[in-house]
Every structure is written in structure tokens, then in C-alpha cells.
């Protein structure tokens, strides 16, 4: 069985608002001093793939990323977590429509042994589009199941748990398919072991140049333009209820809530 996990390198989403600034010209955040990380839901997807490999025999996991040279970081991390292969589509995403990006990723996947399951994050922790899983499924001609929090092997495919507004759905998922993964206590990405980190140092990546995969345009393609990118208006500081002790502060808070008509 072959599992392909999509990994994207993003600006650390946990940097606070105060440390965040924009380059209005490029319509991108200023990135200079900030760390980059593996997009969080991709970490959950990778964890599910590793667990499926542990649950079966003869399961191989390939990590795939598309981005500039620096995007290699996320593949190094995946190798340290013992994925079997790492594939880097080397090139810039900027300027490609989402559908073309999906076709690039699909073309890269078509060079690999045919996958039984493709796992993506539910949304990348930068522009938060939440579109690549669905579009990639279309480009690959596979069904798609979004918001999956856990997977186990089952006859003919998998049993999947999907998180929806009202709770959870348990689904029978035939293979092949694309899933997008959402966070759950059961899929927090494990830490790499020191010995695996050492072993990963010597391992190679497969690199494919973007040019080799770029499909021609297919008919008319609409494009999405970012007209502007701005920071939200600054908020004012909370009125802090203080008292001689916590109990008094709490009573003051209750009083203020009543004055404001909130209680």
C-alpha cells in the first residue's frame, strides 16, 4: 500500500500579531526574522500516515512538497520521522492558479507508484484556502473526504472518522481516495527520535523541476486576484477589574458586567 502525504512549509502561524507585519507591495507578510514550520494540519496528516504504516504490513509513505529550495525543510523533518521517500517539486507557487497547482501536484504523484491514499491538511496555515485537497482529488480523478481525524485499515480501503458540526461520522472509505485531515488528540504529530534524525541526514530527496510538470492551460481558467492585504484595526486594552484579592476582583467584574447590561 502506498500513502502520499502533502507537506507545506509556512510562516509560523503562532507568531503573535504584534510581531507580524506586511509588505503591501508584494501583498505578503514580511518574513525576514520569522521562523517557518510545517503547516500544522499537514503534521496531523503525516501522523495518520505513520500510524497506518504501523497498523499494516508493506505500507510505504511518500512525503511530497511543492515550493522553493527552502521548502526542503519539511521533507527533512518527514525523513527524520522515517517516511520512505521524499519528493520535492522545486519552483515558486506564486502566479499559478489553484487548479494549476493541483495539476502540478497530480503530475508529480503520477510519477510515483499509484497511491492508495493521498493525505493533505484541511487548510494551509498561511492563506488558509482549504482548497488543495478537493482540487487535487479532481485532478487525480479520485473521491475526496475532508475533515478526517482518524483512519484505520478496513477491507477494500479504510474506515475514516470525519468531524462535522454535529459530531462525528464514521465512513467506509474505498481506495484510492484523497482525504484532508483535521486536528484531533489522536493525531498530534510525534517527535522524531534522535537516532532517526541522525539516519535521515544521509538520505536523499527526489527533486523534480516545476517546468517538467507544468501542464498547458486547459481552456479558460478564472484566476483569483488579491487586491489588497492589510492588518486588522488595533484593539483597545481591556478594562482590568482589580481588587484586594481574586474574590473582590471577581465581584467587581460581576458588577461591571451588570452595568454593561451583559448579565
Amino acid at each position, binding site marked *: 500500500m502506498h500513502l502520499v502525504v502533502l507537506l507545506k512549509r509556512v510562516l509560523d502561524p503562532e507568531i503573535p500579531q504584534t510581531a507580524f507585519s506586511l509588505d503591501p507591495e508584494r501583498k505578503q507578510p514580511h518574513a525576514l526574522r520569522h521562523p517557518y514550520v510545517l503547516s500544522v494540519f499537514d503534521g496531523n496528516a503525516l501522523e495518520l500516515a505513520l500510524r497506518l504504516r504501523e497498523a499494516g504490513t508493506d505500507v510505504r509513505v511518500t512525503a511530497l512538497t511543492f515550493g522553493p529550495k527552502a521548502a526542503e525543510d519539511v521533507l527533512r523533518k518527514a525523513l527524520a520521522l522515517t517516511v520512505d521517500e521524499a519528493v520535492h517539486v522545486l519552483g515558486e507557487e506564486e502566479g499559478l492558479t489553484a487548479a494549476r497547482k493541483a495539476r502540478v501536484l497530480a503530475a508529480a504523484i503520477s510519477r510515483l507508484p499509484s497511491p492508495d491514499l493521498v493525505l493533505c491538511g484541511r487548510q494551509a496555515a498561511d492563506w488558509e484556502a482549504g482548497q488543495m485537497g478537493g482540487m487535487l482529488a479532481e485532478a487525480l480523478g479520485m*473521491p475526496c473526504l475532508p475533515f478526517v481525524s482518524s483512519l484505520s485499515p478496513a477491507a477494500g480501503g479504510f474506515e475514516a472518522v470525519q468531524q462535522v458540526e454535529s459530531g462525528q461520522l464514521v465512513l467506509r472509505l474505498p481506495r484510492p481516495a484523497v482525504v484532508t485531515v483535521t486536528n484531533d488528540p489522536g493525531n498530534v504529530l510525534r517527535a522524531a527520535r534522535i537516532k532517526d534524525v541522525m539516519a535521515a541526514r544521509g538520505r536523499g530527496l527526489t527533486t523534480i523541476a516545476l517546468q517538467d510538470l507544468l501542464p498547458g492551460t486547459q481552456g479558460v481558467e478564472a484566476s483569483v486576484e488579491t487586491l489588497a492585504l492589510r492588518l486588522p484595526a488595533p484593539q483597545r486594552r481591556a478594562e482590568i477589574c482589580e481588587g484586594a484579592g481574586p474574590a473582590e476582583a471577581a465581584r467587581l467584574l460581576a458588577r461591571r458586567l451588570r452595568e454593561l447590561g451583559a448579565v
Partner: protein
Amino acid sequence: MTKIMTAVWAAGGRVSGLGLEVARAAAQLAAEMEARLIVLALGTGATTAAQALREAGADEVVTCEEEALDASPGEAGLVALERACELTGPALVLLPADSLGRDWAPRVAYRLDAGLVTEVTDWSLEAGRPVFQRLVFGGKAIATMAVAGGPAVATVRPGAGRRDQPPRPGQGELRTLGIRIAPDPRWPRVVRRQAEERQGPGLEEARVIVSGGRGIGGPEGFGPLRELAGALGGAVGASRAAVDEDWVPPTWQIGQTGKTVAPDLYIAVGISGASQHLVGCARAKTIVAINRDAEAPIFDYARLGVVGDWREVLPALTAAVKEMLAG
């Protein structure tokens, strides 16, 4: 005439609050664009939702009640939506930003060669074309986006496109989509539903929400939160950190990738105030923070705050509230 299409899940005649809200907002936009609003109502029993959708402003309600929708709502719904789009050629498809709308949007956009803007929080019309606002980078920036060179597909978050005018009544013609959808053996199939059990109001309806974060320290800490919420007739929510720790179920999560809530009062306890959390409660009328760290970003966002250990503050607050409500 320009057409706007909306698709909502309407099994058993029930359309979610967000589904109706999106239909109403789409009707306003249709009025501004002099467009016709077509609402696709999906699921067995969807026809009984026609009246509510008419009142929300639909010019045309198209129903699809194929049985295949029950077990494979994502895949079968996509087939229906694609067909409805082929028949009407909408310039704009607006879908609720819920689990089904987010499932269909990228796939129908791909099939229609349309441009996709997700998680829209507001829009305006500029030179006749919709220009969308959405939060990006976890709520740390706001992007203005528009689609060029083809139709647009957008998913819509609660509160978007809200106008003060009442919804314009729709003509509400009713027809059926008229296709058979045979279940495909390659599709995922629902085998079991595990509905969440919750006492008191749901998070989307609650007028008061008491939310706990990593600072609560364990599942038992949610007891005192429940007590305060109970005294106020409210519900208990959580940050993603508390969900990831397995202290509370995922359906309690509030934020960018959890629920979007709009209570009168939101009390954040042991929550630091990450932008991704605040996105989910920004529409609360009054936000209160209880946090032992005076520097926590939540205090730059809340209206009122107490700096202190929740273990000491919360019982006193609950007692004071009970006393106030009794007297």
C-alpha cells in the same frame, strides 16, 4: 440574466442557521446585482424546506432528494451541484462555510474552471463584480480578493454580507433537479453517526459562552466552567489547545477551524488569545478574559478582564453572579 447559485443541506426540511443566513445574504447580493437567486436544496425531504428558502429570498428553489445523498452527501451532493450549475450557468456560487460547503467548493470550482475564494467574511460590489474580504494568516491579516476571467465560487462564514435591509422576498418557484444519482462504489459511505450530546443550549445559539483553554489544566477544570455557564444559562466552549489535550470533545472548539459564535457574553478562561481563537468569537458583544498572565494578548482584545488564577477567580465570580441573579 445573471444568476447566483447557493446550495444548502436540507434533509428532512431542516436548513442550518448558516445555510439560511447564506441564502438571505445571497438574496441581498442578487438584488444589488439584479441577478436571479437559485437555491439548490439537497437531501431527502428537502422539498419541505422550500417555504423557508423562499422567505429567505430564493427566486427559484431546486430540490434533489436522491437517496444516494444519505450515505454519500459529499460526493452525491457534488454531482447534483455540478448538474445544477450546468443547467443554469451561475456567475457566482455561494456556499456555507460548513463541512459540506467546504467539501463542495474546491471541487465544483475545479469542474467549472471557476475562481475560488473561501471563508469569506464580507463583500461589496465594485464595477458590478463582487469583491470579497477574508481573514488570512490565522486572522492576523485581512485580504481583499476578486475573481477575474470566469465564474466565482465562494464559501461564506457566519455574519458575512449582512445588510440592515430585510430580505427581499423571492419568487420562489419550486422545481426538482430531475436527475438520478446512482451511488458509486468508489465513494466514501457513512456507516455510523455519532451525534454529540450536550446539555443546555448549543454553542451557535447560546447567549453566554464560558470557554476554557490550556490554562484550565485538565478535564476536571471544566466543571467550574460548566457551573458558571449553568448559572448564566449558557454553554461551555474551548480553545483548540484544550481539544488537542483531549479534555473536551472537538465539537466544543471555537475559532478559525472550530465554531464561529456570536453570544452576548463570551468569557475566555485560561485562553491566551491567539488570533486563530479570536476569529471564532470576534462577533461576541462583550468579551471577558480571566488569565493569570497580565501580558496575555487576550487582554488587548477583551472588554473586561481579571488578572489572576481562574481557580480563585471563577468560584467567586460564579457566587457573585448567582447572588446578583437571585437578588
